[in-house]
């Protein structure tokens, strides 16, 4: 096995090993450190000495042994501090009951724990990537462009918060589950976006984050195949990521969807995403991830930009607008309306949105206005709007794109 294969194997085994160790010994905080050390040891030894017959059992044994050491040391320290009265071993030291659930449940409980509502989104993301994704602190720090020391502090604070909250290692009560799952989905969505939407920083690592988000969402989908929003989120990620190869030119410039070379889209992801969303949509209530996935599917299935089924996209945005009051969704809806009913109708909707304080001064509104003005043939006004949009964004690739759009139009002077 190459070290890359070993790395993949370790990322898959990490949450199961951690789940088992925490279930057996409690002490999530210390157990997480112990399992991380076992993973690092395995990453060093396995490529050299070969993978043990039962790699999961190896990780659990080494992790448990390390945890025992760490707990003993902590216990000794506390004894020295004469606080032994307040210290007792976790109740979970006793052997697990015979009816203990399978490993898959451990992974789900871990995910819910890492996305605990008491943590900030940044901490939820970091802890999820480490405890469930099996990434090292250094890898996570690199992906988020922060110093390793900062990430180490963020993760240990997050673990302390969870330790102090006293949440037991088991599924939250049924009444809380939907709400807790929603947080997990949002964290996975944020990880994906961090990798996909960013146009700065070392590109390789950012793309890895999207791949990691897809892997974790796939894992969640395997555990909860009947949850429509989990399926929807996985489909949305696949259908969005499918366009990645065509999204930027060789020199890093942004290429808008209608100008992308569709032969470069990832056909395998599109097929998988479309079949996931087609299976999920008819079942139960349709949430925002499913709707966004459905919109992405309509785009991805169009053989060319001109062949896009805009009436369907417009209808899907109308349903999406009913689920939440989001001005960005409304702006996208205005574009769809313009494609179906003409640019003047779309511009009318844009002008209504311009009075909305949340988006009225946003570069995206100006960019849409510019695009629709261009469609009406008012090139002077379109140029002006493209320039206004460029001045409002702080992203250089976007600025370059917008100035280039303006420069294509005939100069009114």
């Amino acid at each position: 096995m190459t070290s890359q294969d070993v790395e993949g194997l370790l990322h898959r085994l990490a949450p199961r090993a951690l789940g088992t160790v925490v279930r057996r010994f409690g002490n999530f905080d210390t157990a997480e450190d112990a399992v991380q050390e076992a993973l690092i040891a395995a990453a060093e030894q396995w490529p050299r000495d070969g993978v043990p017959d039962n790699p999961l059992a190896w990780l659990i044994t080494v992790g448990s042994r390390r945890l025992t050491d760490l707990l003993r040391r902590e216990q000794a320290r506390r004894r020295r501090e004469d606080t032994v009265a307040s210290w007792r071993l976790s109740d979970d030291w006793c052997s697990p009951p015979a009816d203990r659930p399978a490993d898959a449940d451990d992974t789900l409980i871990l995910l819910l724990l890492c996305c605990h509502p008491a943590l900030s989104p940044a901490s939820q993301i970091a802890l999820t990537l480490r405890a469930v994704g099996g990434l090292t602190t250094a890898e996570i720090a690199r992906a988020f462009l922060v110093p390793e020391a900062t990430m180490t502090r963020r993760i240990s604070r997050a673990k302390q918060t969870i330790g102090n909250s006293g949440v037991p290692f088991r599924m939250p009560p049924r009444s809380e589950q939907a709400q807790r799952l929603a947080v997990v989905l949002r964290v996975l969505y944020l990880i994906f976006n961090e990798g996909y939407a960013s146009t700065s920083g070392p590109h390789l690592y950012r793309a890895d984050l999207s791949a990691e988000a897809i892997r974790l969402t796939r894992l969640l989908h395997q555990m909860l195949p009947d949850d429509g929003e989990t399926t929807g989120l996985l489909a949305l990620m696949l259908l969005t990521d499918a366009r990645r190869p065509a999204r930027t030119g060789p020199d890093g410039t942004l290429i808008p969807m209608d100008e992308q070379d569709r032969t470069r889209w990832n056909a395998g992801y599109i097929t998988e995403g479309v079949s996931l969303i087609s299976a999920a949509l008819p079942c139960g209530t349709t949430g925002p991830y499913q709707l966004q996935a459905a919109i992405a599917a309509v785009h991805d299935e169009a053989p060319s930009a001109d062949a896009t089924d805009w009436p369907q996209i417009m209808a899907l945005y109308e349903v999406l607008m009913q689920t939440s009051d989001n001005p960005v969704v409304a702006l996208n809806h205005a574009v769809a309306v313009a494609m179906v009913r003409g640019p003047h109708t779309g511009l009318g909707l844009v002008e209504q949105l311009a009075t909305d304080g949340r988006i009225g001064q946003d570069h995206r509104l100006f960019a849409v206005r510019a695009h629709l003005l261009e469609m009406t043939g008012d090139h002077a006004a379109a140029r002006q709007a493209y320039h206004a949009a460029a001045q409002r964004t702080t992203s250089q690739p976007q600025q370059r794109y917008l100035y280039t759009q303006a420069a294509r139009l005939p100069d009114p002077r």
Partner: protein
Amino acid sequence: MKYMIMLYASQRDYDQMAGKPSDQPEWKPEAVAEMHEFMGRWNQELIDSGEFVDAQGLAAPVHTRRIHGLDGGVPVVTDGPYPETQEVLAGYTIVECPSFDRATEIAARITTAPSPGESSSPRYVEVRPIDGGSDDFTG
């Protein structure tokens, strides 16, 4: 010891890089890509050598807000207070290395970054030691 390496640019430099039409020559996409690649390599070498601490690029000077105290509890703000050609802080990289000379060596390499126009090249960078006395307490 930690050092902050500071890069400077004017609004006009930002505009040229963003491709804004003006009487100055604008940057071609290839030139921007080449510069990003250079900076990426420079940064990666610091990460690999363990000297990298933090780096951030700042948005164009036009997005600056200068706050002149409070007036009846409301901040008194001037937007984008810089003339077109005034050079202001554009970004920084914090490195941790044994000596001022090493920090100078790292900083000097950035002045060789490729740039198309004369005016856009970083003619200078500045390095200042960070007074890290409180580091021991926050760690």
